[in-house]
């Protein structure tokens, strides 16, 4: 149920491979025995355990994208951050207590150590006394032994002389008896000699007696001295014994205090480590949030970009229109100037002619006043007047026209000047827009760099933070499916297994139909037989997985292999892609037949990955299908394959 045994690997139960949690194993063993081997009960207990129900995701993980950046600053994310802060605060507030406890334990330990040292000091001095007493006793003992020996020697010497005297005495008596039998001078002489010898020995006996007595006295004295020393020694031992006991007690107290001290120090260290981890997670989270904010800003800025660009275009267009108008104006002006030129020429000519005529007339008038007959002159004057009038009549409208044109020109000039100003305005407006756009672009760039950097940091911290999160939030560790599990899971998920089972069953039923009133046990046995048959038929496929993904069929191996030949098999080997194809009632087919792509995605997600589809999956898959509706069957076939080939299908939890 956990993908890993308490004893791992399972088939290696020996003393060199102990259970990872022996206490738990013992509890489970005992409860299994107690329940009279009720397997379903133990399974239930396991399933209801906190450990079994642990999630596989760390709280933060649900909210981040591939780079480890928070997707949105959701309320949930903020709550998680608050929780982190809280955990951090709790851990930090526990630090002084832990440190105090640690210090207190240290004081206790120091006191215990001091007490121990004090007792040890006393003990050492008593031990020294003991040594002296022991030496004294040994000395006395030696003296006593010597005295005993001396006494023994003196006593022996005395006894030897006494024995000699007794023998001589006996001899003298025998001689007396012999003499009584018949007086013999020789015997008499012997008696006298013997008596003389006895007399001679007498002082010796007295001396030996005295020596023996003296030795006995010396012996008794040394015995007394020895006993005195013994008493002395004993008294020292009596004093030492309680001290030794005290020392042992102090030693125990010190050991206990040391253990307590070390434990509390370890607790404090653990706490510091926890704080460090929490802080790292918090830092990563904040960075991730910053990156998310930067991302949002970036998106906003990028959104504003088109409108800015549009305004620039509008301003530019305005400017261009004005410039065009200006050009038109200038063309008209040129046209007008062009019109004015010949007219001005003609006007000049007319004015010149008029001036000539006026001059001629005044000469004629002068001449007419001088001559009597002014008649012909008058006629000429009249002629001149007439032609002057003609000229005048031509000149007046021309002049008017010219004036008009000049006015026009001046007006146009004025307009041109105005336009110039306007264009300059438009130009500066364009420039302003351009600057705004550039600034915007630059800030996008800066933000982009910043956000990339943050995202990069998040990504690099990701693995480490995951580790920390697993410890802080206690989630289940990840594991890859074994090759066999992987193979059977694919066969089951694609309905290949169930179709094999039903084929097997159909074959069995055809060959040996079950009576309609057959007991359920027989039906069940038939089903079991079908499952076995299907498994036998599909085993070859599983062997392929064993060979490609592990050490081979029947070989125990815990090693995880990920190599391109496996991927090539899944991609191009035909089997996996073939199994994923729409067929009968399998998930691929159900997804294709579902009119709503979103619920089809939900179906695949729940059916193959045992989880709800994510919002983004519910979005992009239907989008892909909407773009190319005829490809819907193909897309679902490929999607199912993609899920089977994906990391989530292989690695759990």
């Amino acid at each position: 149920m956990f993908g890993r045994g308490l004893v791992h690997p399972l088939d290696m139960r020996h003393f060199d491979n102990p259970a990872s949690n022996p206490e738990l194993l013992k509890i489970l063993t005992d409860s299994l025995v107690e329940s009279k081997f009720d397997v379903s009960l133990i399974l239930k207990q396991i399933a209801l355990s906190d450990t079994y129900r642990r999630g596989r995701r760390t709280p933060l993980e649900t909210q981040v994208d591939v780079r480890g950046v928070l997707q949105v600053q959701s309320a949930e994310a903020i709550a998680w951050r608050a929780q982190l802060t809280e955990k951090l605060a709790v851990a930090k507030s526990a630090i002084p207590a832990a440190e105090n406890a640690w210090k207190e334990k240290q004081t206790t330990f120091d006191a215990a150590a001091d007490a121990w040292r004090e007792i040890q000091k006393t003990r050492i001095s008593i031990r020294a006394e003991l040594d002296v007493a022991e030496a004294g006793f040994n000395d006395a003992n030696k003296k006593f032994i010597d005295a005993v020996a001396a006494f023994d020697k003196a006593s022996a010497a005395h006894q030897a002389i006494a024995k000699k005297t007794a023998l001589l005495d006996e001899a003298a008596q025998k001689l007396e008896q012999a003499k009584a039998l018949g007086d013999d001078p020789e015997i008499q002489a012997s008696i006298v000699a013997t008596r003389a010898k006895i007399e001679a020995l007498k002082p010796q006996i007295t001396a030996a007696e005295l020596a023996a007595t003296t030795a006995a006295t010396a012996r008794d004295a040394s015995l007394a001295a020895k006993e005195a020393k013994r008493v002395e020694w004993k008294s020292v031992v009596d004093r030492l014994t309680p001290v030794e006991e005290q020392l042992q007690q102090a030693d125990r107290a010190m050991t206990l205090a040391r253990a307590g001290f070390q434990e509390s120090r370890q607790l404090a260290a653990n706490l510091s480590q926890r704080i460090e981890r929490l802080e790292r997670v918090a830092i990563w989270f904040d960075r991730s949030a910053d990156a998310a904010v930067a991302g949002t800003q970036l998106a906003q800025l990028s959104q504003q970009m088109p409108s800015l660009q549009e305004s620039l275009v509008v301003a530019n267009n305005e400017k261009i229109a004005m410039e065009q108008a200006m050009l038109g104006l200038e063309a008209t002006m040129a046209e007008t100037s062009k019109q004015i030129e010949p007219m001005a020429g003609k006007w000049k000519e007319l004015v010149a002619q008029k001036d000539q005529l006026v001059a001629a007339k005044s000469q004629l008038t002068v001449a007419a006043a001088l001559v009597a007959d002014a008649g012909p002159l008058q006629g000429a004057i009249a002629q001149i007047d007439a032609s002057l009038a003609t000229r005048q009549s031509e000149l007046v409208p021309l002049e008017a026209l010219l004036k008009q044109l000049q006015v026009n020109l001046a007006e146009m000039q004025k307009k041109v000047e105005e336009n110039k100003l306007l264009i300059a305005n438009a130009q500066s407006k364009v420039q302003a827009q351009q600057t705004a756009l550039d600034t915007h672009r630059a800030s996008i760039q800066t933000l982009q760099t910043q956000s990339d950097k943050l995202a990069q940091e998040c990504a690099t911290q990701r693995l480490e933070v995951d580790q920390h999160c697993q410890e802080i939030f206690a989630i289940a560790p990840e594991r890859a499916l074994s090759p066999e599990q992987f193979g059977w899971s694919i066969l089951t998920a694609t309905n290949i297994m169930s179709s094999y089972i039903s084929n097997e069953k159909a074959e069995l039923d055809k060959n040996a139909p079950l009576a309609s009133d057959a007991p359920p046990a027989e039906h069940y046995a038939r089903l079991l037989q079908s499952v076995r048959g299907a498994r036998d038929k599909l085993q070859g496929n599983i062997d392929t997985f064993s060979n490609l993904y592990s050490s081979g069929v029947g070989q125990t191996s815990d090693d995880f292999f990920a190599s391109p030949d496996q991927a090539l098999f899944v991609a191009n080997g035909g089997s996996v892609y073939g199994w994923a194809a729409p067929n009968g009632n399998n998930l691929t087919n159900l997804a294709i037949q579902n009119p709503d792509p979103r619920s089809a995605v939900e179906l695949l997600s729940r059916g193959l990955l045992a989880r709800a589809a994510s919002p983004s999956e519910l979005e992009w898959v239907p989008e892909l299908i909407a773009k190319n509706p005829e490809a819907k069957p193909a897309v679902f076939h490929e999607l199912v394959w993609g899920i089977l080939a994906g990391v989530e299908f292989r690695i759990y939890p």
Partner: protein
Amino acid sequence: MSNRARYACGSIDHALSRRRFLGASGLLGASGLLGGVASLPSKVAGAIPKNDYRIVVFNMHGGLSQLESWDPKPSTNTGGPFRAIATSVPGIHISELLPKTAKQMHRLCLLRGVNTAEDDHGKGAYMMLTGRRQTPAAEYPQVGSVAAKMLHDDQTGLPGHIIITPGGGGGRGNEAAYLGPKFNSIHLGGDKPPQNSSKPDAIAQEAEDRRHLLRRKINEQYLSQRRSAITDAYTHSYEQALKLMERREVFDVSKEPQAAQDKYGNSELGRQCLVARRLLENGVSFVQITHSNYDTHNDNFNFHIEQVGEFDLAYATFIEDLAERGMLEKTLVVVLSEFGRTPNINLYYGRDHWSKAWSVAMAGAKVVPGAAFGQTNKEGTEVIDGQVDHGDIFHTILRGVGVDSSQSLIVDGRELPIADPAAEPIWKVLV
């Protein structure tokens, strides 16, 4: 093949593929995990500077007879029927079964004093490829995985560790041990490209692109929540597979001119060599070629005429080809077995397993050319000079391609020497 002598010792090793065999000895290996070598995930400290050296190993599966190859003892009780011939290096003689190789002698370096003291196929192979004795306490990476780790550049789009075996397939052994799954080998069956390395015709290019896009999108969902060495290795393997499909033509010998194909000889070994050369040219760091099966307990001499003849042509052409292309300077070619064969000729004209005094041949890279190091006695029963073992050879191979074999990798906080610290490179054969 059918008219070949039945010669092998019939041990289970020949029935299983070599790698499956290593897997079987992996029963011990599994308990090796208890020793604390975590199989996953491996974090190897520090970036190791890559160089462009490469390694090729000719694995003479079953145990090549040193007496019928590198260390002949003609006219002795143990020498067998073949003569020794002069080579391009005056004074060095090799078996007359290697006439073409004799002409390449000035490029080779023979180690004639190999003593590995292990007469078991599986254990011998393990020792020669890992440089260590097999122990239940730990698993060690094979030379191919070490080469892939130390030398290979991922940018080539090709795997760094390729093993070519006649059958291909078989289960995998954890050759990379603590180096991590990325450095395990890719198996090629003979001269064929990796299995499944071409897109099935039934899948249109559009569908192909789309299904991988879908796979990546699905992965993204999971990876946004959880990433680890396992998940990275798993997703990486699919991208590696796609790159490998792109470079499939590298494995295709038929892309070579007919003349080149002819030159290597019409044998599977010849084609393996040609594939190996193409792989080396395209940046693969390690290729192991397998020539099987030398386990000649019966009829040793007829068999060696046949098999060594095939080897002679392919190997000599390979060495010459690499030299002519200027690749030999950067490529170390090692010919090794799990052990040699007994000087004593048995009742069935065979030779048995013998690890006390046998030979290994090297060529190229930083190995001294035109040399014979070490010596066996007159009848080849004992090493009398220049004795080396598997550990020394492993060090020498790494040094031969410019890798400091005394360095350690930090794996999960443990310092692991890449080669056995008790052994040393054979400095006398290194330039």
